[in-house]
């Protein structure tokens, strides 16, 4: 069975599972932020439930609580998603690079909590190893 080849689109082609989902997200300084757990898609007219009648685009990367439902099934309550707006994405390669600092994003709140409450309080926790 030989299917006709697709036309060659002008931009970079990304298959979601192959190139985006579960990729490491790095911030502008190269610090790991999270992995891509899901993508939020809207119609270009802003509709939340697009179909083929109008183009749709990725508006945000999602991370955090979405992991549990991806492993065990179900749909996460939307209040628990952490969004990273596509506006912040600077490059997509073997990692997804952001143009902002990870500390400014909601998704890193657990990292900041552990740093401020535990690790940062232990002696030497804020110094370079050496």
């Amino acid at each position, binding site marked *: 069975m030989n299917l006709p080849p697709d036309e060659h689109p002008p931009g970079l082609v990304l298959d979601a599972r192959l190139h985006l989902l579960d990729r490491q997200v790095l911030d502008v300084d190269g610090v790991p932020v999270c992995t891509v757990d899901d993508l939020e898609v809207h119609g270009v007219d802003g509709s939340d439930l697009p179909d083929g009648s109008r183009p749709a685009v990725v508006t945000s990367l999602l991370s955090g609580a979405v*992991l549990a439902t991806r492993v065990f099934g179900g749909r996460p309550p939307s209040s628990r998603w952490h969004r990273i707006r596509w506006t912040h994405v600077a490059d997509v390669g073997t990692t997804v690079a952001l143009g902002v600092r*990870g500390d400014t994003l909601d998704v890193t709140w657990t990292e900041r909590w552990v740093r401020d409450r*535990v690790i940062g309080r232990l002696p030497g926790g*804020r110094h370079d190893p050496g």
Partner: protein
Amino acid sequence: MKRLLGVALGILTAIGGFLDIGDLVTNAVVGSRFGLSLAWVVVVGVVGICLFASMSGRVAAVSGRATFEIIRERLGPRAAGANLTASFLINLLTLTAEVGGIALALQLASSVEPRLWIPVAALALWLVVWRTKFSTMENVTGLVGLTLVVFAVAVFLLGPDWSELADQAFSPAVPAAEGHAVYWYYAIALFGAAMTPYEVFFFSSGAVEERWTVKDLAQSRLNVLVGFPFGGILSIAIAACAAIVFLPAGIEVSSLSQIVLPVALAGGKLALAVVIVGIVAATFGAALETSLSSGYTLAQFMGWSWGKFRRPAQAARFHLTMIVCILVAVGVLMTSVDPIKVTEFSVVFSAIALPLTYLPILIVANDPEYMGEHVNGKVTNALALVYLVIIVTASVAAIPLMIATGAGS
């Protein structure tokens, strides 16, 4: 000159860092029961770990991605999550065995019971993980661990019947007193001891820690291809010591104190002191590697910030993971469980979990999006497929053999 020193240091630390409590115990037990008739497994295991480690090191150096980031990205959350659970628990088991090994080795030096040493060892472990630079940690434990060469020296001093040892090694046969199932069970244990998955997590994450690039590939290949086979020779030397002294006397090795007796017999107090220092260094080094691996695997799977090159506060969840794992290991050991038993289980479970880490690395090492022109060559792939079959076979056979032989008893 400086470059040459760097190469030598890399190789020496690879040799010294190769052995851990799993290699020590499994090789001595096997030597005392089967002589050198399982030495071929060490050779198979060493070639396997060379292949596997150099592949994961190359992936890490070229793409900057460590093993578990790749496992997550390739397998997706469900399969990778199951993989993480298995790898993380086995790594924790190995960490427990290594910390217990430190305590047993310190008992040999002091007669003080291991339960008093365990908290001390764990605290020292955490301080090094917390404060020491990665390269310092690697070089010091690796170089001190080199003192285990004394096992090879001991083989010569014991003046064995070389033709008999060669006969055991080159025309292997199952000894009359042992069954075939037990023989193959220990073959899998030895294979798991040589190819422990944590070495690969550690090796690939270490490449990122030390910021390897394509330029460092030659050095990394040399470290692995020269260092690991020498480590394998030391493994066989441990088995040979046990085969020379214990096999004819019908003594079965079941404790760390027995493993050092042939060395004392061969070289006296000095050799004994050296081997104890070596065992402390080897188990301490491996405990560091497994503690870090627990942090590496979880942080890489979750996409957290990780690495010893960062301040602890800049990799907070990574450091918290390691603290919790060290505490769990101490808690388990404080129940008076025998660290040697923990070790024996950890090497077999390592063999069971091997395909989980091996396959994703093999696939990514062939992916030009990650590797560009540094994808696997034909010869590497041919060898890698042979090992895929061996690894899967060992993994599948391990549990039935474990049940059939009562874990080798």
